[in-house]
């Protein structure tokens, strides 16, 4: 029975499901379900095709907005009305069809409608508009049955939240947003399997990557510097007290490492496990002014624990990008940057030379 009808599944996939069935973790009708799931996954477009679709939708919505604003609308109230009608119509039509043209058209109409609604709401004040954008995008991220739309909605909601914080001069709270996004990302990653089992893969994947991209984007703000004089405030800082974010990421890193030492490294001696966690705490402590270093470690480790190669790649890529941006940023002096980067690098290498022989020795001992 195992494997019967699972034409798309590779032998490795069959073996995994057969083993899960033997362990009593899944029902015996898994071949049909796996076939359906693999067929849906095989038909999913690669990222660059999704970028093409996203670009097309963005361009089409821009042209549509220009048409509506220039030919039909003369007032903000009309913009709000037409925007809402466009959004609701796009949502309704999208539920009825998955034809490529409909997918494209509803994406473009929805984005155009949202932009019109935002323009119209601006007459009630910037804060009201931004709150409406945040609420609307959260609803659309959950409700609109399209991966690209969900991803874009998450980014738009977080962008509006960030702008609102700076508008209200609450940028000191950026850490709350960043760490909430980090916790959200880890929660979604941890629950991803359960969501997929409930056939919600279409929902959860764009949300995972949307939240991850938004979180990393927010952390990049810590590398920006604006002259306080330009902001009219002598004490203005774009990302005040970055060490708060670093500490938060340090806690999340410790939690991930706790999971790691209880799974992949469970046969390692307690002293080695403790020194592993202690050494990474030291790295976080040294790199407190540069929260991107701890953030990339969190992403990297999450990718390893949840077996997501793309997330591992994003973690490594973000580490390099953050390093370059931090190097060129103007907030800290070159001497301060030099001290932070060199000390962190030395701590990382020390960790490798102290810890790796113990880990490797355990492997050799096991092999022997």
């Amino acid at each position: 029975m195992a494997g019967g009808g699972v034409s798309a599944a590779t032998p490795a996939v069959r073996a995994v499901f057969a083993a899960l069935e033997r362990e009593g973790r899944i029902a015996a009708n898994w071949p049909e379900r796996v076939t359906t799931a693999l067929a849906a996954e095989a038909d999913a477009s690669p990222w660059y095709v999704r970028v093409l679709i996203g670009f097309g939708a963005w361009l089409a919505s821009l042209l549509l907005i220009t048409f509506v604003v220039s030919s039909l609308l003369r007032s903000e109230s009309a913009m709000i009305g037409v925007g809402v009608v466009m959004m609701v119509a796009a949502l309704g039509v999208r539920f009825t069809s998955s034809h490529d043209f409909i997918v494209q058209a509803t994406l473009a109409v929805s984005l155009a409608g949202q932009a019109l609604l935002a323009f119209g709401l601006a007459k009630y004040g910037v804060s009201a508009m931004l709150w409406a954008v945040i609420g609307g995008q959260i609803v659309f991220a959950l409700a609109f049955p399209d991966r690209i739309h969900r991803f874009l909605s998450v980014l738009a909601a977080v962008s509006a939240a960030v702008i609102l914080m700076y508008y209200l001069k609450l940028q000191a709270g950026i850490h709350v947003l960043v760490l909430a996004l980090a916790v959200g990302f880890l929660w979604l990653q941890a629950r991803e399997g359960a969501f997929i089992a409930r056939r919600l893969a279409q929902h959860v994947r764009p949300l995972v990557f949307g939240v991850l991209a938004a979180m990393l984007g927010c952390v990049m703000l810590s590398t920006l510097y604006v002259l306080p004089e330009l902001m009219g405030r002598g004490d203005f800082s774009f990302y005040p007290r970055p060490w708060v974010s670093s500490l938060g990421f340090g806690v999340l890193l410790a939690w991930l490492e706790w999971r790691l030492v209880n799974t992949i490294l469970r046969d390692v001696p307690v002293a080695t496990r403790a020194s592993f966690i202690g050494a990474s705490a030291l790295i976080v402590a040294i790199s407190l002014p540069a929260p991107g270093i701890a953030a990339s470690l969190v992403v990297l480790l999450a990718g390893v624990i949840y077996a997501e190669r793309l997330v591992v790649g994003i973690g490594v890529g973000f580490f390099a990008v953050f390093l370059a941006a931090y190097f060129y940023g103007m907030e800290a002096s070159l001497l301060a940057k030099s001290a932070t980067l060199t000390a962190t690098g030395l701590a990382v290498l020390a960790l490798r030379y102290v810890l790796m022989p113990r880990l490797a020795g355990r492997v050799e001992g096991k092999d022997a």
Partner: protein
Amino acid sequence: MRALALSGAVPDHGAFAQATSRFLMLAGTALIIAGVAAFFAFNWAELHRLAKFALIEGGIVAAVFLAWRQGLDHLAGQAALFGAGFLTGVLLAIYGQTYQTGADPYGLFLGWAALILGWAVIGQQAGLWLLLAVLVNLALVLYWGQVLHPPEAWIEDLAHVFGPASWIGYLLSDFRLAQLVFSLNGALLIAWEFGTRRGVAWMRGRGFPRLITLFALAAISDAALLLIFTSEFRGADRLPIVAPILFAAFVAAALWYYRAVERDLFILAVALLAVIVVVTAFVARVLDGFDAFLALSVLVVAQTAGAAAWLRRVARSWRAAA
């Protein structure tokens, strides 16, 4: 999690230790290099010129020595040779800065390319060839702007304010230069694909041809867009139609080659994106009035939907044939 463990997707203890060791080595080295660079940048103005040269030349010698010791088949050896190639340019820039040679910047990039050509030949790695391709492109663009067709002084002043990217962008607004850049990258792409078809092992990676295709498509799309938006269609005696012909020929060849011969969905997607941009621009130029925006919006939706459907069909046919 149990399924991931059974499938081997979650690394075991040994694989985790190996990957962690490699990551910590690379991350630690990168952080220290960045820290040391920041320290020298902090003291750069006070450093004696001989100390500056000694630093860079010492770096080049160390990188070449490392490449020799590790071997050019090893990742560390390849990275070291690439580092030596990069530092060569830094050395030339510091030489020009220290002795105020008065040479045009295109000479820096051309000299840099000439000096690392030998390493690129023996190195047999895409990274060095990509660096070489970028340098030759920059040398061509700057030679055009500094020797062949220098713009008026106020444009140069503007470029000094907005940086070198705006200067290069301005130069590429001459469709003759855009056509030359396209020809250069088209030739590089053909040479690379020829090597791939001949079974040259180090040319199997798809990164280099994808990036060079991006350069070529961007240049020829730029030339076609310039023609669309700047030419007088009606009443013109002679239209410079070379760019649209090159654009159409390149896109058609790419769509055929990367579908039927060297399967590459990325390049097919990029080629179709270029088609959407150029066709939409042409229709925008032809149509008049605000109603045109609605027609253009529908046109973009139709083109994108058609492109996505075709790409999915191609991917499906490849999977079925595999």
